[in-house]
């Protein structure tokens, strides 16, 4: 980053004396027009890189009581993170929530995107409806789930009146409630992404397989799926990122002290309730690390998949 600002600094104040140098730089694509990039880079450095590095530095300045309790000098926050089961369990709690939800969103989207890829009446209307959850936002989805799927809600009332169940199902204020809210916000996103990947696959490939006698199953597993797999991996990563950073719904429709005590809640608890900024930064940064590990594993798997043109319009 600093290298960029340094490389084009020399040719700015005295353009005449360093004309040849400016020319040589311009040939490599460095000239005064690159300054248009400057505001964005300054914003990124001041509002992202600086606070982030500051936060990393902060994790090595634990509060005295953490240091006394866990020892380890400047690493006390990290030792506390791994040793305190109340904090460390939140890693598994977050994973147990985010991984199944991301998998579910991707796997269910595949057949639906597949069936709905052809033109049919009302397709535009349906994709408009699918964008609707974006307007709801997590907080309103939580409120709606509490009313709709709560003990007195329409869903339980309907199931009880039709005699399917005798007791109201506990669908909110627990693990299931958060899953519902994550699927409602994440599924449309996964569906839109996968259907755009699917439209990028040339239909003539499948037609060719059909002329060679491949049946529906073979066409799917041998032709379409390998072409679609990298896109599925990307979709999985993006829905996982959404589900992993769940915060408001874990608090509102979940069980924030039990089965949905996710990492984001723990970080916020340290930040706002315990006013322990260094521990909060530690949890927040470990959250980023865990997420990046999962993404790295998926990307590693993705690198073994087919990479090339899918021949379609996308």
């Amino acid at each position: 980053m600093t290298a960029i600002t340094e490389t084009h600094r020399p040719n700015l104040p005295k353009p005449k004396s360093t004309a040849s140098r400016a020319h040589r730089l311009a040939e490599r694509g460095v000239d005064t027009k690159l300054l248009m990039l400057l505001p964005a880079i300054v914003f990124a450095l001041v509002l992202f890189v600086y606070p982030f590095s500051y936060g990393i530095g902060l994790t090595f300045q634990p509060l005295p009581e953490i240091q006394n309790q866990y020892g380890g000098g400047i690493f006390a926050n990290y030792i506390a993170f791994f040793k305190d089961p109340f904090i460390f369990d939140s890693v598994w709690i977050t994973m147990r929530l985010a991984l199944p939800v991301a998998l579910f969103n991707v796997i269910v989207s595949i057949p639906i995107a597949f069936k709905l890829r052809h033109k049919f009446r009302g397709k535009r209307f349906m994709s408009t409806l699918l964008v609707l959850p974006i307007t709801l936002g997590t907080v309103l989805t939580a409120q709606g789930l509490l009313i709709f799927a709560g003990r007195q809600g329409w869903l339980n009332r309907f199931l009880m009146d039709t005699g399917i169940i005798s007791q109201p199902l506990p669908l909110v204020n627990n693990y299931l409630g958060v899953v519902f809210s994550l699927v409602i916000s994440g599924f449309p996103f996964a569906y839109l992404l996968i259907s755009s990947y699917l439209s990028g696959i040339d239909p003539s490939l499948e037609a060719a397989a059909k002329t060679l006698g491949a049946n529906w199953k073979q066409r799917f597993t041998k032709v379409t799926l390998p072409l679609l797999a990298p896109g599925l991996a990307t979709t999985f990563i993006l829905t996982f990122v959404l589900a992993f950073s769940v915060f408001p719904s874990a608090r509102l429709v979940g069980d924030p002290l039990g089965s949905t005590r996710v990492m984001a809640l723990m970080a916020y608890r340290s930040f706002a309730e315990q006013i322990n900024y260094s521990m909060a930064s530690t949890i927040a940064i470990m959250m980023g690390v865990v997420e990046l590990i999962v993404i790295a594993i998926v990307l590693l798997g993705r690198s073994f998949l087919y990479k090339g043109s899918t021949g379609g319009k996308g």
Partner: protein
Amino acid sequence: MSNFTAQHDSAATELVDITANRNRGKLPPGEKPLVASPGTWFVWAGVAVFFIFLFGIITSVVVDSFGKGWFTTWLPQEFTVSWYQDAWTRFDLTHILGVTLIVAFVVVIVSILVGVPAAYMLARRNFPLKRLVMVLFLLPILIPPITFGIPLATVMYNFGLGRTLLAVILVNLVPSIPFVIITMTPFIEQINPSIENAARMCGASMRQVFVRVLTPLLVPGILAAGILILVRTVGMFELTFLVSGPQSDTLVVAIYRAMTSAGGSEARALVSSMGVIYTAMMLVILIIALRFINPTQLVAQVKEARED
């Protein structure tokens, strides 16, 4: 031998195909039969369940916000608009909506002014360390908001900016500027550079090229990116929540605070009425947005940018 059986099999499937086609009546190639397969039923059932949940959620919030005494019945005992008046005075919604709109529009304008020139350079130029710059702009989108939000909020409080409007605007710029850059870069790439070259040849300066030539061509992209930023900023909970205070809460954060502070059914209807106001606001933005952009296309554009 195996070859023979394979041939035999394919002949058999062909036969099945033919009889199936006969049963379904004469269909031109590519048309679907009326009687759906189990797979189709599964798909439609899944979509139906999703929409039942979606409409259940929306309708129950709307009914709750207009209802009075809704406990153990299908519908509330009577309907009223008093929750809206109550919520408006109790939470000072004029102020909250004002804050929300100010934050959203300032964020949209600043991130477009900063992001579009940067996207232009990334689309048109190759320069040393370009990949590093791309990564710098991708990170704030990929990293969970809480991860960079907590250090960022700590810095804000250290500088005495905590709970101010400025802090709310600044934290919302962090993911918004990269978002503009990432959606605009492919959009600029598809504009033919020879148009700009022609303008330069006719003696236009860089600023003139930008104002007279590029901006008119970029208007659809800028509108799309701007509307998306608007939706994201109005809906952004985590980052705003970390730095905002009573005087700088946006609507989502105010709803969250109302939900977590009070319990009981009276507060629930108040929260619902605020939620309906929020959804109505978002719907207006979305309806305007859908006039300009196709949702699938948009995700695909983002995807392409993320690929490289």
